[in-house]
């Protein structure tokens, strides 16, 4: 349930960016969520729908990309994703590694529409 705070922050970040560029509507909010971030994508999407009501982000799609856990081995430098509870380095069996990805949660980008065009100008849609 702690996703509600995070989602409130996601919405605030998106709205303030939209305001900054003078956009009328937010079409999409892209969020990166680490596998070990403790935040659940479905919860974020659900809370977003509730919290965004009556704001320019009301109909925005929330695109959540899950970043897998990645370790960097301190012994041999290999970057790897642990599988099935095996956290040691698959190359040198070293147990000392740093988590370089998988704990993060950040807003990557937003896609906005200006009032005059009425349509998204995302490069993907042209």
């Amino acid at each position: 349930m702690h996703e509600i705070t995070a989602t409130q922050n996601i919405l605030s970040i998106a709205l303030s960016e939209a305001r900054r560029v003078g956009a009328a509507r937010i079409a999409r909010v892209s969020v990166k969520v680490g596998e070990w971030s403790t935040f659940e994508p479905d919860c974020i999407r659900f809370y977003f729908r509730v919290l965004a009501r009556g704001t320019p982000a009301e109909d925005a799609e929330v695109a959540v990309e899950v970043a897998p856990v990645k370790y960097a081995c301190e012994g041999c430098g290999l970057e790897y994703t642990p599988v099935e509870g095996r956290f040691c380095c698959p190359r040198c069996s070293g147990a000392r590694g740093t988590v370089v990805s998988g704990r993060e949660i950040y807003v990557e980008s937003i896609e906005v529409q200006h009032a005059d065009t009425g349509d998204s100008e995302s490069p993907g849609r042209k």
Partner: protein
Amino acid sequence: MQIPVIQKVLAANDLISEELRAQFEKAGLLVVNLMGSPGAGKTSLVERTLEHLRKLKIGVIEGDVATSLDADRIARFGVPVVQINTGGACHLDAAMVRKALGSLDVSELDILLIENVGNLICPAQFDLGEACKAVVCSLPEGDDKVLKYPAIFSLVSAVVLNKLDLLDRLNFNLPDFRRHMAELNPDAALMELSCLTGEGFDRWIEWLELGARNAREFGGGSQSPARCRE
């Protein structure tokens, strides 16, 4: 039109926790964030610590969804204690700790123990400005918890395995638990003890004393030797 943003969602918490960390370092005290499931024995650990470690000044922040039951237990020891009620929230955040510090003079303390809300998931994500994060878990929870909750066990500098007195009555595989910890987080100090019988408690006390000494001499921040690594 796509606009790149790249803004951390928890930036507000990180900002406050860094502020707290600077304050703790300046005051030269050791701050430990105690996390773990409900019933693992976090409050019992704090109580036994207050009994055993009388020569150091210890303050306590108790985090719970509701009630002041834990703070009442701690207040009996005559130490400064503040209860935070999160009112439903599943973890403490830095703003709550900052508010609690309004009723706690950290410059008077050698150690501040922050008992988080009983939960093995959410507290992992919220930095409180502490020098050390520790998980308290117990034998009845099972020997597979490290594998099931790697996000939190990979993050801590100490694991307290409590209720060791139950070892001969449960099918808890201690070598398996040790192996999982050694593979996931070999730098964490693993302390097996019983708050009930006192078995193994000396190591926990030594760990705290070492951390408090480091914090006093070098400051208690995460970049300093006060991280309590052995």
